[in-house]
């Protein structure tokens, strides 16, 4: 139950860890001294009939031993926690860096929550493992050995009892530990199942109300809780037996030690002082290993958490040197982007998301991508952003291959407008300045004006200082789009990648976005995943994709006349209404 990888991490703090264990061992020694002084005091007072005055010296020593024991306990706890904190900090830093190397493609979807909980709770759960379990492993061997070293010369019979019973404890622990682990996991599952059911009911409370079934759920909650209680208690009744056996072993060992000592005292083969000394040490002998037993859970949880953490750290990243070897290879002077037989396959996927794409985009060209879901449009975007690396084939910027090591620097050439832009927690100004951290307020407002965002931002309670993101003010989809557009104006890069919003925006946002995009596209190289006829009609070239392959390309009218997939796509939806025939599609009626 020791994670080797964790030990590699501990190497950096091994001095602290050694200190922790050393202090624990010192604690063991102080315990022995305390027992020794105590047994001497009682022996002299009891059999030697010594008055208190003659015992003062011993009493002082005893107090010193007690104080030392407390101090050692304090410091070893502090050091142990420091070990844990340092390892946790370093692991968490590594994880965060790794997340940014893995990028959004790996983290998309449901993984977000799971990954975040690994970085936060997963690492937190290592604390008990590192601060208690690992030092305790060392101590549960070292402290009993030390005690044994002092007991052997005094009382070899007890030493034999110790030696015989000690290995039984870890043996039992392992033997029943697995079973206990299974049981406790089962209990944990039961509890989380109950919680999940309760959450399910709470979340569905309005649905229940709509069909006037919500009061009835009270009985259901009670009934399910009771059922689970009964079945769980049945298993626990058995599971607790293992703990009973372990407890019996240690208490009975102490009892046996006491009885054997007593018999030898009567026989006169042992003196009282030694006897009391050994008796005092008996519980201390078993204490470390019993503590280890109580940390067993923490140990298991820690190893499980560590597995998950290292799993994440081990996810292959195509090239890590990218982060330090960040070369500024791209001046704004590039002329072409070329896809050369580019193929991309997702790991679990049967078919490639993109296969053998050949494509050349010249500077200043405006290109639209159209095609059904799964055609490979987003894959092209992600490859060009350097968020994914082609499984096969190569993307070149002029003659320079787009490798992970230059991706970060290449991205400075790109403005990317996703379909659902994310506003980070912070003020609107913070979010705008993401694109240009040092820009002046005037420039920022200018960009917001161009994007049609200035008016509604000014009307917000704190203007540009209004908090957005989680717990911030709620913005409509169209407003978020306009803020993202303002960011794009601020960045002012030569290449624009746009995934047009499909969501139904209000007519006002539609109008603003339409105009802003017209502005933004001027003199830029543009690649758009298009959803609007008006956008397509402004493009120099339209690429028609299907199932990862480019099946056609050309201008709007050209493609229509070929009556291929493009024609089919447009006619299926709006065909009967005939609008697709217009060279300049119906202009949007601007609200006054």
């Amino acid at each position, binding site marked *: 139950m020791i994670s080797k990888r964790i030990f590699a991490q501990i190497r950096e703090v091994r001095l602290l860890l050694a200190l922790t264990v050393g202090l624990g061992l010192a604690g063991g020694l102080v315990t022995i001294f305390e027992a020794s002084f105590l047994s001497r005091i009682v022996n002299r007072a*009891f059999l030697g009939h010594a008055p208190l005055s003659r015992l003062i010296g011993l009493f002082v020593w005893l107090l010193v031993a007690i104080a030392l*024991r407390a101090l050692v306990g304090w410091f070893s706890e502090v050091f142990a926690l420091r070990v844990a904190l340092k390892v946790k900090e370093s692991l968490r830093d590594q994880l965060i860096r790794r997340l940014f190397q893995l990028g959004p493609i790996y983290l998309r979807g449901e993984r977000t929550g799971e990954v*975040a909980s690994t970085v*936060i709770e997963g690492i937190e759960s290592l604390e008990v493992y590192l601060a208690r379990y690992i030092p305790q492993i060392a101590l549960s061997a070292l402290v009993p050995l030390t005690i044994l070293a002092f007991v052997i010369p005094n009382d070899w019979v007890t030493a034999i009892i110790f030696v015989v019973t000690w290995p039984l404890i870890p043996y039992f622990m392992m033997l029943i530990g697995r079973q206990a682990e299974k049981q406790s996991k089962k209990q944990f599952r039961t509890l989380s199942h109950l919680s999940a059911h309760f959450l399910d009911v*709470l979340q569905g409370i309005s649905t229940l109300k709509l069909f006037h079934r919500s009061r009835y759920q009270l009985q259901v909650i009670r009934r399910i809780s009771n059922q689970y209680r009964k079945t769980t208690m049945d298993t626990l009744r058995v599971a607790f037996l293992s703990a009973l056996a372990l407890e019996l072993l240690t*208490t009975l060992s102490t009892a046996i030690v006491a009885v054997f000592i007593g018999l030898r*005292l009567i026989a006169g083969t042992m003196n009282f002082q030694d006897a009391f000394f050994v008796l005092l040490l008996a519980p201390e002998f078993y204490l470390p290993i019993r503590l280890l037993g109580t940390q067993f859970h923490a140990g298991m949880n820690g190893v499980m958490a560590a597995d998950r953490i290292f799993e994440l750290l081990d996810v292959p990243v195509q090239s890590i040197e990218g982060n330090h070897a960040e070369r500024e290879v791209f001046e704004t002077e590039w002329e072409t982007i070329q896809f050369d037989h580019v193929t991309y396959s997702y790991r679990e996927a049967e078919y490639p998301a993109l296969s053998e794409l050949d494509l050349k985009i010249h500077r200043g060209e405006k290109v639209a991508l159209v095609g059904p879901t799964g055609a490979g449009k987003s894959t092209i975007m992600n490859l060009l952003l350097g968020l994914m690396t082609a499984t096969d084939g190569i993307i070149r910027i002029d003659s320079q291959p787009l490798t992970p090591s230059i991706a970060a620097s290449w991205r400075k050439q790109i403005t990317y407008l996703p379909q659902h832009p994310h506003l980070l927690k912070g003020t609107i100004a913070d979010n705008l300045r993401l694109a240009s951290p040092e820009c002046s307020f005037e420039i920022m407002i200018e960009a917001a004006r161009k994007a049609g965002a200035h008016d509604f931002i000014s009307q917000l309670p704190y203007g540009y200082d209004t908090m957005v*993101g989680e717990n911030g003010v709620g913005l409509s989809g169209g407003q978020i789009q306009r803020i993202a557009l303002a960011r794009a104006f601020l960045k002012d890069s030569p290449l624009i990648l746009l995934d047009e919003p499909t969501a139904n925006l209000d007519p006002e946002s539609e109008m603003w976005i339409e105009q802003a995009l017209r502005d933004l596209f001027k003199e830029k190289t543009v690649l758009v995943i298009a959803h*609007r006829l008006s956008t397509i009609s402004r493009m120099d070239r339209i690429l028609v994709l299907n199932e990862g392959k480019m099946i056609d390309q050309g201008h709007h009218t050209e493609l229509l006349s070929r009556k291929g997939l493009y024609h089919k796509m447009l006619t299926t939806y709006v065909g009967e209404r005939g609008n697709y025939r217009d060279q300049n599609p119906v202009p949007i009626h601007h609200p006054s």
Partner: protein
Amino acid sequence: MIRTLFRFITPHKIELSWATLLGVLTVASNIGLLATSGYLIASAALRPSTVLLLWVPIVGVRFFGIARAVFRYGERYFSHDLTFRILSNIRVWFYDRLEPLAPARLNAFQSGDVLSSAVSDVDTMQDFYLRSVAPTLIAVLVMVIVYGLLSIFDYRLGLIQVLILLVSGVGIPALTYWLGNRLGTEIVKIRSEFSADLVDSIQGMSDILAFSQEQNVIERLSGRQRMLVNKQMKMASIGGLTGGLMTFFNHFSMWILLLIAIPLVQMGKISGVDLTVIAQTALASFEAILPLPIAFQYLGRSFASMRHLLNMIDAKPAVTNGDMHLGEQTSPELVINHLSFHYDSDRAPVIKDISFTVPYGTHIAIVGPSGAGKSSIVQILSKFYDYDSGSVRLGDIELRSLSTESAHQQIAVAPQSPHLFNTSVKENLQLANPDAPFEEIQNACAVALADDFVQKLPEKYDTFVGEQGYKLSGGERQRLAIARAILANTAISIFDEPTSGLDALTEEQLLHSVHRALENKSMIWITHRLTGLEVMDEIIVMNHGLIEEKGTHEELLQQNGLYRQMWNIQQQMIRPSEIAI
């Protein structure tokens, strides 16, 4: 609040007494084991003439050795059982209080995970007994026993030991609290900020990378973490101090009792044998107060959780439950007259003075951009909210004075984001009509175009849908919600944006299928997509809480107003993602 907390425990007095008693006996057995073993060896040291004189302590030592393990077993058993019972009580109590408030009053808690945090609050409170009440009760009772035991020798010994136990059991946790409270609050705050920042950065990673801000974000996160670790380091010192002080007082009590007891031996008031018993008792009795610092921490947490929950349920229901019933009437007309509504008195109204009528048997659509107030009408008709002014009459009875049950017997709703329970497809549907025969369920699904995909599920109608129905796609979930509303077989059916997860062709098919099935009933179809609305008897166009236009599809296209604008925008969209090729 404390009374409320105890209310969950008091119904189980018998279990509580057993669990506490066994807990006390467990600690007492350990004291017994150590004290008798001390007594045993001290008596043996006096070399009695026969071993038989030691028979009692020998048996005693063995008895206590076995008893401790057995008592511990019993204690664990009873306290776990009790915890489950308490948990059930808390859940039932919380649900009972929350149910009348849902969903209107819950919307005040903006964030989506309020409910899951409520669930974990409930889970925290289950520990109230196991980790707070039990250790305190056990500590008090053990102190009484320890006093009794030591007073056999001299009452002063008992007094001093209990005093030290009290000082350590209450004083040390108080000291820790005093030293660490502020730090602890800061740590919680920094940690939650850190985790919010992290989640936000993961969700916004595309944007961060696209703007080349990754280094800055990594550094900011590292900085936050360093701050957290620094505070935690300080907290570690305080935590260590607690343990150290406990150890010190534990052994110090033994030290001081000996200091007092030795002169008593000299004076012949107690026997020398008793010294071992006194020392061992002093050492063993601390077991009872060791869990107290943690008990107080848990107490704090239980209080905090309790406060959260009380906060949530501290509200008046948003709707008055009327006492009128529609009775046998099966063809009610819905008349909305000058209706106005706002969610909060300090927020702008979302519905402003609207009027329309749905004669029985007509099908109407409500359309408009997001934020127009469409869904708020559904909220009112679901009797989730009361309206401010104007009237909503269902079959000539004001909705406000209609009983909730009667209203739901007349109106079925397929909500925008329907909730599916983590059970089978069939059970999810039966919610609307528990006694419906299977044919009827299947029929409702056929109308909602859901039967086809349900038949393809591994166990068809008996397939479990997973938490929140995650095994199904958004469109599939919506179709099941539509089937559920149809199965309810009510006079009026409302579909709130039922097709946002569907493609245009399926949407049109679905609308026509539902339209045919509900031919003799009333239907309100709410949508922002203008697909297939030619079949509607009337279309109501809303914007900014007002009704802008009314009419049939053809009429509205003629008018060149908002409907026409939305129509034009829609014509602009190619929807390649939705084309079946």
